[in-house]
């Protein structure tokens, strides 16, 4: 199947942009002994190649559950009960046909950056060893010296002192450096899509700015598609082309960032935007 979409921009020009991810009618349930909760409720969305898509909403709105579904990374008590997922127009999930190839997207096609920069790096391994692990799997038959050179280059591109960070352990780096090292790990395989799951939440504002600069660089230099999950609307407005607003497992509003923030239609989106503190 081939899915393409014609987007009509405000200016009136039309342009053919391919979808990298298309999710249709996805339902995810979380089970506990007491009850079963529908964490994601019939969500349909698309991610366009090269865009930065922001996924915003309060804590518990289902943002993380939704994006984890793309890689089938759920906990044991969480499962996809219904839906279809296409990646690059190829069917990777169809519950009605019992097709689930989501795990095959990991690594080569989709990378991920997590919330806690330190917890997302093995504390017993140097950044270099971690990068080498990924490059050995995806870097073909390169020699160790070549892999090291490539790893140092990737770290340099992330604005880090590559040679030093390569031989450092996570605890020897600041939070921002760890997060940029984690981004380096995510892009080492040159994935088509990167998912940043609240990757700035655990950082102070200065470090947040560093990470946002790095993510912008990914977009400008590599045209990487990015899904940016956050509850920080200001950060989302700084980085994202489009926004999706979620509430209680449902998508309540989708739109271009500026338009959505300027003219929200849904009462929840209005409340979310009005809750952002402002200077007086």
């Amino acid at each position, binding site marked *: 199947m081939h899915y393409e979409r014609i987007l009509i921009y405000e200016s009136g020009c039309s342009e053919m942009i391919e979808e990298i991810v298309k999710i249709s009618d996805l339902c995810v349930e979380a089970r506990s002994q007491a009850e079963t909760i529908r964490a994601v409720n019939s969500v349909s969305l698309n991610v366009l190649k090269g865009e930065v898509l922001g996924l915003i909403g309060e804590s518990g709105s289902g943002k993380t559950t939704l994006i984890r579904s793309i*890689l089938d*990374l759920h*906990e*044991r008590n969480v499962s996809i009960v219904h839906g279809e997922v296409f990646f690059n127009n190829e069917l990777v999930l169809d519950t009605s046909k019992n097709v689930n190839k989501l795990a095959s997207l*990991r*690594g*080569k096609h*989709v*990378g*991920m950056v*997590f*919330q*806690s920069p330190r*917890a*997302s*790096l*093995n*504390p*017993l*391994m140097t950044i270099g060893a971690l990068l080498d*692990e*990924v490059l050995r*799997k*995806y870097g073909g038959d390169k020699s160790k010296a070549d892999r090291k050179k490539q790893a140092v280059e990737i770290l340099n591109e992330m604005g880090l002192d590559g040679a030093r960070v390569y031989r450092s*352990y996570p*605890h*020897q780096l600041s939070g921002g450096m760890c997060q940029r090292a*984690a981004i380096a*790990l*995510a892009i080492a*395989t040159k994935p088509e899509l990167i998912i940043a799951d609240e990757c700035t939440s655990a950082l102070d504002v200065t470090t947040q700015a560093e990470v946002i600069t790095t993510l912008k660089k990914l977009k400008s230099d590599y045209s990487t598609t990015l899904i940016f999950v956050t509850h920080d609307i200001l950060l989302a407005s700084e980085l994202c082309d489009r926004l999706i607003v979620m509430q209680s497992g449902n998508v309540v509003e989708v739109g271009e960032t500026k338009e959505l923030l300027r003219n929200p239609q849904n009462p929840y989106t209005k409340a979310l935007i009005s809750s952002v503190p402002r200077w007086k």
Partner: protein
Amino acid sequence: MKSKFRSFLSLTLWNKVLLTSGLLLVLTAIFGQFLPVADPNEQSLDYGLLPPFFLEGGTSKHLLGTDLLGRDLFARLIYGTRMTVLIAVSAVFLGAIFGTLLGVIAGFKGGKIDAVISRITEAQLALPFILLAISVIVSRGQSLSTLIIVLAIVGWAQYVRIIRAETLSIRERGFVTGLRVGGISDIRIIFFHILPNVFGTVLSLATLEIGTMILAESALSFLGLGVPAPSVSWGADLASGKDFIDMAWWLVTFPGIAIVLTVLFVNAAGDALRTHFDLRKRMF
């Protein structure tokens, strides 16, 4: 060399004592048979139950006294070191490897695999140690290898329970999810990422288990299921001296002190190793 000597001097007195006794223990286990001591199995009924040299009736020929058959207790302690260390370390090593692997697999894979491993572990823990030991030793015959296998069977279940719990926690940490997202295989994650992270816990547990194994070995020796004569072990000596505790206290005291010092040393060594392997503690 100088810096190593300096770091030894910076240790507390207690650690110095433990380190020195540990060093003596290892040297004795390796080179004990070359020391100028009496034959540990040489009997002399005329000199039965002689007290240590510092008590009235004691002699410098038998520094720590003799047992009922007149065998030199000091020589038996020296020769017993190798057997005791060999039994305890081998049993702990086997149990740790088997239990840790099962624990990591159960914790990481979860689901049915976890359920099966956990139930087998619980069944193992429910079996009385002595009953299990008697069954295995009687069916296989009394030997050093059988004793080590029995003790390993007794020990592995503890590792499964603790390492499974530790793995369950590590599995949920971001870096493991990151590795899964990176497409790294489960086997590689288990062997190169989870196992090094549980190594400190395994080491702590193993050091505690060495003491348990020495005591378990002495319990089996007491029942006549330990190392067969003429092999010498502290546990066997402790067990055989129990009947004379009111008239020859040295028979249980000196093997007991040897066991206590060994267990203390092993625990201290475990602490030191854990600090050594924990990079965060070493750096700050």
